[in-house]
């Protein structure tokens, strides 16, 4: 991961010095850890009774339900932003000026706005304009899709630009129509290329779906908050730790998949 060429391979003296520093750092880290544990213990955070709550079936099933809701939002958003992003990328590469300019504005404008604001645009704006109501699930998904469509479009465009020009030229020479060239020649290659990108997109969306917390879509973070409200403040840290661990595990699994995919496809 890190460039190892940065320094010479350490000799005996450097190794001894490194060992010494490692020991010093370990002592310092240990001291900080002990201080933190003592501090937490003095607030009764570490009382075993509070942590047993995480093994309670109701809490566990609530957290897992929250996790499923998070994954549902993330999955739907990624698929939709993939489709929208593809169309915007095609628009961005189009020779028709109005299409090109519109998609460019779309990308630049949406990339500069907070996801939370886009979610609110849908959540409050959609009912205000149409008079119809929108569920928190779709408001969250639509906001995330708006935001992610811009970065998806850029990923697609990079994928298309990276293809050798001969691919589409050959298709034109053979008399294959644009749509078919796209469907059978270009897209399969582009998708292969941006697959790792897609998985890291999934990580981003999974984390961003925690914004559902704000509009009241019961995903993992809001489940945790509700559990804390219901059970009481002494369970705040254990439950938060459970929520955080679930996020970290899901995201690490997805990142690992992304690394494996990019190695496979390279």
């Amino acid at each position, binding site marked *: *991961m*890190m*460039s190892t*060429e*940065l*320094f*010479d391979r*350490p000799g005996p003296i*450097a190794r001894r010095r*490194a060992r010494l*520093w*490692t020991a010093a*750092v*370990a002592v310092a*880290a240990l001291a900080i850890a002990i201080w933190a544990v003592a501090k937490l213990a003095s*607030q009764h*955070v570490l009382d075993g009774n509070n942590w047993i709550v995480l093994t309670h079936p109701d809490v566990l099933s609530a957290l897992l339900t929250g996790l499923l809701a998070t994954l549902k939002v993330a999955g739907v958003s990624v698929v939709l932003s993939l489709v929208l992003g593809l169309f915007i990328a095609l628009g961005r590469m189009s020779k028709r000026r109005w299409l090109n300019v519109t998609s460019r504005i779309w990308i*630049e*404008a949406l*990339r*500069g*706005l*907070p*996801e*939370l*604001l886009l979610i*609110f*645009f849908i959540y*409050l*704006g959609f009912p*205000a*304009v149409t008079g119809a109501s929108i569920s928190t699930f779709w408001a969250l998904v639509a906001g995330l899709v708006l935001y992610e469509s811009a970065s998806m479009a850029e990923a697609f465009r990079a994928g298309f630009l990276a293809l050798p020009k001969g691919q589409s030229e050959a298709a034109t020479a053979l008399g294959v129509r644009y749509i078919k060239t796209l469907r059978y020649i270009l897209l399969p290659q582009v998708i292969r290329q941006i697959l790792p990108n897609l998985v890291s997109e999934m*990580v981003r969306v*999974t*984390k*961003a779906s*925690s*914004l559902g*917390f*704000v509009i009241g879509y019961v995903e993992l*973070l809001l489940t945790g*908050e509700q559990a*804390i409200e219901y059970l009481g*403040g002494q369970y*705040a*840290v254990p439950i*938060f730790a459970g*929520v*955080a661990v679930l*996020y*970290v595990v899901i*995201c*690490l699994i997805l*990142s690992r998949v992304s690394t494996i995919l990019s190695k496979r496809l390279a």
Partner: protein
Amino acid sequence: MNAAIENLGTFWSGFVTTLGLVALSGVFSFLGGLVLASFAISTNPLLRRISMAYIGLMRNIPAAAHLFFMIFILPLLGVKASFFALAIAGITVYFSAYYCEAIRSGINAIGKGQLEASRALGLKNRQTLLLIVLPQGLSNSVPPLINTTIALVKVTAIAGVFGVTELFGTMLQLINVNDSAVIALMVMTAIMYSVITIPAALAAAAIERKVTFSS
């Protein structure tokens, strides 16, 4: 649009709070990132592990969860601080990991020849780091650092939900009292965020082009 224009003064104070939030948490996160990056390239294996563990853990917890922990849970444990300060703490814990990645990407982009040359000239590790690696690494990482800062600007909006009256929090308060002007208020907020993020994104792209041309 009237409601948005009448409340321009309120928006302005929210905008200034957002800028303060961005500046403070940006500087702290950059310093944190610098420390983490220096750990990551250190010859000391323990420091490298610490840096990697921190990044793996903190980057994968959503920003909203970081702010939730700082602003909801810490006060339950007896920590007393303003929402503003706690929001800065939460954003810093999260973004230090991203700034570290930005700095590292700049350092990794340094040509191998630079390091070989500095070794051939007999520079010590510390000299290589201070005279060769950091100056070039940091200037390489200007575009990713700007992009990370743009992401930080967008994340500060979440603080608005947790009681900090920055731009987004101001918008929520104004929407509460003028619910007929929802769209205008949201458009105004969007414009104010774009005023920060779009020029910054253009600058990052321009610098990136310049760097690729010159090298």
